[in-house]
């Protein structure tokens, strides 16, 4: 077994991490086994299914394709960082309301990919949603209820912005040190 001989320093969900880990382990394994953040899932281990998607400096990445050492000094957000004090993120809330969840195994990665899209585009078209989720395989739902949830979340967040209420995710202290181009 590879040794835990590397001092990993990064932030995860806004909290500083300082821990001895195996630098060659997949970031997915370090998150799940060392930090006990099991929300990101392993579906294929090859970067194909997207179930392990997390944010790395605001960009969605497949954590099974990232070596732990590559996370050094970076800001990571996992699905566990997206609900705050019991408040679901708008996207999560819409996934509940639109019945977008079935077995749920793809869902953490799906939510992260959807959040990344909405951070980039306030008003995505259906085609843009399809494209943004193209790297996240779901075998249960047939995707349509997921598309609806993402489009509805975008609409609600646009409305909130018009009313001068920032979307709740951006309020999360520590998660998004504002102001920054790569908020997540």
């Amino acid at each position, binding site marked *: 077994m590879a040794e835990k001989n590397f001092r990993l320093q990064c932030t995860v969900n806004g909290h500083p991490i300082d821990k001895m880990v195996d630098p060659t382990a997949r970031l997915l394994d370090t998150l799940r086994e060392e930090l006990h953040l099991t929300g990101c899932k392993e*579906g294929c281990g090859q970067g194909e299914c997207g179930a392990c998607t997390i944010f790395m400096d605001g960009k969605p990445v497949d954590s099974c394709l990232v070596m732990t050492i590559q996370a050094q000094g970076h800001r990571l957000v996992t699905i566990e960082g997206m609900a705050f004090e019991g408040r679901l993120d708008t996207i999560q809330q819409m996934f509940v309301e639109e019945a977008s969840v079935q077995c749920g195994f793809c869902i953490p990665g799906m939510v992260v990919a959807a959040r990344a899209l909405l951070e980039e585009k306030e008003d995505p078209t259906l085609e843009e949603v399809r*494209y943004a989720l193209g790297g996240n395989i779901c075998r249960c739902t*047939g995707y349509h*209820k997921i598309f609806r949830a993402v489009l509805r979340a975008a609409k609600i967040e646009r409305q909130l912005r018009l009313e001068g209420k920032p979307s709740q995710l951006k309020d999360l202290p520590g998660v998004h040190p504002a102001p920054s181009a790569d908020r997540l």
Partner: protein
Amino acid sequence: MQSYYVLGSSQFAMIENPISPLPETVCETECACPPLEVVGHGLYRPDAPEKLTGQAKYIADLQIPNILQAYVLRSPHASARIEKISTAKAQAMPGVAAIMTAEDLPAANYVPLVRNDLPLLAASEVKFIGQPVALVAAESYEEARAAAEAIEVQYEVLKPSLTIEEGIAKDWILWHYQQFTGDAESVFNNPEPGMHIYEATYTTSHQEHAYLETNGCIVTPEDRGGFKVLGSMQCPFYVQKAVATALGVDYQKVRVVQTVTGGGFGGKEDAPSTPASLAAVLCWRTRRPVRLIYGREEDMISMTKRHPSKTVFKSAVDKDGYIKAVDIHYYVDGGAYITLSSIVLWRGLLHASGPYRIPNVRTLADAVGSNTAPNGAFRGFGQPQVAFAADAHWDHVAQQMGIDPLEFRRKNMLKVGDKTSSGQLLAESVGFEEVVAKVKAEIDYDRLLTLPRTPGRFRRGVGLSVSHYGVGLGANGGPHNFAAANVVVAVDGSVSVAVGTAEIGQGMTTVMLQIAAETLQCPFERLYLADTDTSQVPDSGPTVASRTTLASGNAVRDACQIIRQRMDNYLKERKDLPWREAVSACHVGGVQMAAQGYYRPGYKLDFDDQTGHGATYEIYTWCANAADVTVDTWTGKVKINKFVSGQDIGRAINPALVEGQIQGGALQGIGYALMEEYILKEGRILNDSLSTYIIPTSMDVPEIVPVIVEHNYSWGPYGAKGFGETPLVPAAPAIINAIANATGLRLKHLPATPERVWAAWQQEHSQDSGV
């Protein structure tokens, strides 16, 4: 980690559940149904927030101290004799706690299924690539894997049998069924004048479940020599039986608790019995917790898939377009062992002639052996293959006879009062006509059918396909046809509902709780579904055959009715008290506020092996799918412009979840029709990853419109039947028929990949440029 990760439980309850006016449903029996308050509404899934926030614990998410990691050494050969296994070198590897071969097993060396022929560990021979040969438990996964690779196995390699044709030639027949109705032979031998006779052969490939979560389990030693199995599965009672058999202990010494399961689709019906038993024997040997989670590649190589098939379909239709006779020979490739193939074959046999009135039927069905991994349960269970053959065939026959394919189906389709090919009278709940009419309107069939066929690269067409689906295990279900539920009302009015079937994503949790809330007349938010646990309820059979809503739903309703009746009897004129007060009063009054409910099929079932006759299923779900496609004749790529899937499901307990099941099932059927295929070379799967076995992504999914028709089933919970599998069954033939309508090509093999469509087009149009 810290508490800010935890979802506040109070928040979710504040999302108001949607209650809107109910759609009209059709009651064919005279009954006075009261208006429903909870059933029929799209309530939110109580399990969604945990899944959305990463809190739901799937098997790989559990962290158990002192646990050993297991790894399975698998056969690299499709057929070989094992001459010698040497574990000495591996034993000495670091971290190794135990190594086991067939010789070291504590009790029976088989997985208990139809014929108990699948060994847990190969003893003297291996019959497929990926078959388990030896086991290692070690302190880490890497050490277990390294030790397994150090086990030396000497094989004498034999020539494998790999196809249905080779299996037939070798007479390697795993199972046979047959059905004879009327006298098909004499119809074909002495055809009436003007009768149309046509024969064709249809073949299909494997299909992989591709559940996002691979198979896995954890087995821990418990007090008094017991074992606890945690895992991803559809059928906890199958796993209990398998583990108890492998360990040679009483069933009740094995407690199976299903963890949150990341998809099943049939792939976690019989299959999890193997990893659970393998982990259990290692746990028995080491008396330590053991974790066995399959990697994607080993899951794809060794676990069950949809049976490849070959169907020879011969039909006779009279000059007026009425089907007079069919002669069908249906073959499925069962793989190396029988496992569930006989039951898959049985369902295929009984649905082979389709949802049509046919006076003369001869169907022969054979499961053929091959040196590939045993094929097993997959959504549709032997029906999609034969439904493709049958409904592609009828579409072609209608076209040859110059009849509108939809009119042809209308003429022949089953109605209330008709008999199925097995001679079973259809007494109720046949909403077939309404399904077909609604699907036809939604796809805009008449307009698309008469679109001018313009020459050129892109050709557009429409296709339709119909099927029926016998809900539940039917007359072949034996002791698995029943289900139980335990309902307990606490003093504070909260309610625990325990059932023996599994939530695998399909929405069972929500549906059970809606049925319970409706029957108890209590608030939905006060209900909790217990984990599915073999120690909580009697054996309730498997979570398969679209039976869960019907079976467990009826058991829940039964239990809740008993409790509500007791409450009403005690409360008398006070029975309209608010729920909490009513419960409190009943508890004070000594009313027994717990009950066990039970479900038995609503009709007596039977089956005769010789004739293939009998009342085989208690009720049928009726389905029609339609596809509007554009075929690119230059590349062979088929684009689905719109897909409509309609079914008569009796009653939609939760319409939002029904829609999700329809869309998901239809998309699996679309994948089956157009893209999903295993490439095998000498018994080895070449595309053993999600990068190479291609399933539909968000970029591939067409618009899928679900259509729900509700012709209540008198014995169903609030009229519901089961339907989880039906949307998939006639998906492929609808698409294949649409391709035919667009291009004139009658494809007879699934999947219709661009290569195959292109090749067929080239063959038809070799004389011209195709433009």
